[in-house]
C-alpha cells in the first residue's frame, strides 16, 4: 500500500451525515445532457452522478465546461435535452417549477437581491411565497441574519445598496436558506468578492453547512475554493465529468493530465493542505518535552508552517479536548506530502 492510499483512506470530517435539525436531499444525475439550440457540441454530455444527502459537492472546471448548465438543470432554469435529474428519487421534471424551486436555495454571483426591498423583505421572499405567518417570518429572518453574521437589529431595515459586496452575499445566502431548503445551489457565489472577504465567507459557509447539513452543489473555477469547501469535487471539461472524488484523492491521484494541471497536483503545499494532521501523526511514546501543539483536525500545511515559525523539530498533536494524542515531525510531513503522482514531470521534480 502506498502512502497515498493510506492518506486517502483517512476520512474527511463526515459532514454529509444528515443533521437532526435539517433534512438533506440526495441528487441523482441520470445520463443528463443539454444541447443548446444552434450550438454544436452539447453543453452537458451524458452526465451521471450520485450525490449523497448532506454532501458538499463542488462543480469545478474552466469556463464553458458545462458546470453552471448542470447546476441550473437541477432547479429547472434549464431543461435537459436528455436524461433526467432525481431529487430524493423523484424526477424534477415531474414537479411544478415553482414548488421545486421554493424547496431549493439558490445563490448567484451577482446576488440578485431585490434593490427596492429592505434586507428583511429580501430574506422573507420564499417564506412569503409559501404563505408563512408574519410572526414566523419575522422570527426566521432575524435568526438567519444572525446566522450569516449580520445582526438583525442593525441590518434588517437596510437596503442592499447600503451593504458591502460581502454583506450582500451574506444576505443572498440567508435568503436562500430562508425556507429550510434541503438542497442549496450556489453559482460562483463568492466570485466577485475580494480575497479576504471570500476566504472569510468560505469558512463561514463551511461552518453553516456543518451546522445545517443541506446538500450543497457549488460551482466555481477556483481550485483553492473547491479544495477548501468540498466533500467531493466534480471536475468537468467539455460537458463531461472527468473525475468525481474527494479533494485529497483528486490531488493525489488525478485522473489525467488535465485534472493534474487544473488542480495543481504537483503543488506540494496544496497537497499538504489536504492531509489532516492525524493521518501523518506518530503515536505518543512515553513522556515528551514541551512541543508546540497542533489540533489533530488541522492540515499538514498549517503544521509545517507552525514547525517553521516555532523553529521546533516536533509538534504535539492534541484532540478536540486538548489531550495529546500523538506527535508530528518534519519527516512525517515529508512522507505524507510526497505521495506518488503519475505524471512524469512531477516525478522528475523529486
Amino acid at each position, binding site marked *: 500500500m502506498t502512502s497515498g492510499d493510506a492518506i486517502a483512506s483517512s476520512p474527511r470530517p463526515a459532514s454529509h451525515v444528515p443533521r437532526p435539525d435539517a433534512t438533506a436531499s440526495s441528487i441523482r444525475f441520470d445520463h443528463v445532457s443539454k444541447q443548446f439550440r444552434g450550438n454544436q457540441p452539447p453543453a452537458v454530455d451524458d452526465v451521471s452522478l450520485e450525490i449523497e444527502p448532506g454532501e458538499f459537492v463542488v462543480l469545478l472546471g474552466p469556463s464553458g465546461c458545462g458546470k453552471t448548465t448542470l447546476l441550473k438543470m437541477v*432547479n429547472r432554469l434549464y431543461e435537459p435535452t436528455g436524461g433526467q435529474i432525481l431529487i430524493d428519487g423523484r424526477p424534477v421534471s415531474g414537479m411544478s417549477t415553482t414548488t421545486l*424551486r421554493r424547496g431549493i436555495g439558490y445563490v*448567484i454571483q451577482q*446576488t*440578485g437581491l*431585490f434593490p427596492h*426591498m429592505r434586507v428583511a423583505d429580501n430574506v422573507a421572499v420564499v417564506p412569503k411565497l409559501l404563505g408563512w405567518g408574519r410572526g414566523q417570518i419575522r422570527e426566521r429572518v432575524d435568526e438567519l441574519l444572525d446566522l450569516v453574521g449580520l445582526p438583525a437589529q442593525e441590518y434588517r431595515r437596510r437596503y442592499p*445598496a*447600503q451593504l458591502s459586496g460581502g454583506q450582500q452575499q451574506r444576505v443572498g445566502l440567508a435568503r436562500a436558506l430562508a425556507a429550510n431548503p434541503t438542497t442549496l445551489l450556489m453559482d460562483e457565489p463568492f466570485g466577485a468578492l475580494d480575497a479576504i472577504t471570500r476566504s472569510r465567507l468560505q469558512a463561514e459557509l463551511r461552518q453553516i453547512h456543518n451546522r445545517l447539513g443541506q446538500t450543497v452543489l457549488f460551482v466555481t473555477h477556483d481550485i483553492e475554493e473547491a479544495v477548501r469547501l468540498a466533500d467531493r469535487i466534480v471536475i468537468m471539461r467539455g460537458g463531461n465529468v472527468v473525475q468525481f472524488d474527494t479533494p485529497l484523492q483528486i490531488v493525489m491521484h488525478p485522473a489525467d493530465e488535465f485534472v493534474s494541471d487544473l488542480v495543481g497536483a504537483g503543488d506540494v503545499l496544496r497537497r499538504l493542505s489536504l492531509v489532516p494532521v492525524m493521518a501523518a501523526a506518530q503515536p505518543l511514546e512515553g513522556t515528551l518535552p514541551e512541543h508546540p501543539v497542533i489540533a489533530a483536525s488541522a492540515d499538514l500545511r498549517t503544521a509545517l508552517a507552525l514547525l517553521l515559525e516555532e523553529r521546533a523539530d516536533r509538534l504535539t498533536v492534541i484532540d478536540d479536548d486538548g489531550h495529546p494524542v500523538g506527535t508530528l515531525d518534519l519527516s512525517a510531513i515529508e512522507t505524507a506530502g510526497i505521495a506518488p503522482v503519475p505524471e512524469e514531470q512531477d516525478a522528475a521534480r523529486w
Partner: protein
Amino acid sequence: MVMFDYLIEHRDRVWELTVEHLQLTLLAVGFALPVAIVLALLIVRFKPLNLPVLGTLGVVYTIPSLAAFAFLIPVVGIGRQPALIVLASYAQLFLVRNIATGLRGVDPAVLEAARGMGMAPWQIALRVQFPLALPVIIAGIRIALVTTISLATIAAWINAGGLGELLFNGITRNNQSMIWAGTLAVTALALLADQVMRLLERMTAVSRARRAVG
C-alpha cells in the same frame, strides 16, 4: 390688467373648462395606459417588434394634431370621442417607450434570482419587474400627461370642450384677456400635473431605497 380680467370675472367658467380639460386628459391617458402596457410587454418580449412599433408611434406623433382631428371627423364625427382617440394615440409614444425602457432596465440577475426562488411569472412581474421599472414608467406618464394637456387645447376645435375653447373664442373675438385666461389655466394645469407625478415618482420603493443610500 388685461391678463387677468377674464380669469377673474369669469372664474366659474374658467374653472368649469379646467375641470373638463383635466377630465379629457385623464380619460385619454387612462385609455392609453393599458394599451401601452400591452405594447411595451410585446416589444420587450419580442425584440423584432421594437423598431416597427416605436417607429409607427413616432410617425403618429409627427402628424399635426389639427390634421389628425380633421381626418377623424368623417369617421367618428366631432366631440369628445375623436378627441380621445387622437390624444390617446399621441400619448402612446411616451408611454410605450418609457414602460419598455423601464422593464428592460431591470437587472437580469435580479430576474434570474426571482425565477430561481420559485416566483411565478405574474409574481415576478408584479413584485419585481414593475416595481423596479416604476420610476421610469411614472416619468413616462408624467410626460404623456403634460403633452396631452397641451394637445387637448386643440381638441376644442372639434367641440371636445376644455380650455381650448377660451383660446379659439378669444382668437375669433380678438379678446386678449380670454386668450390669457386659457393660456394661464393650461399652463397651471400642466405644471400641477408635472409636480404631482414627480411626487409619485419620489414615493416609489426604488426612490425610497435610493434616498436611503443617500
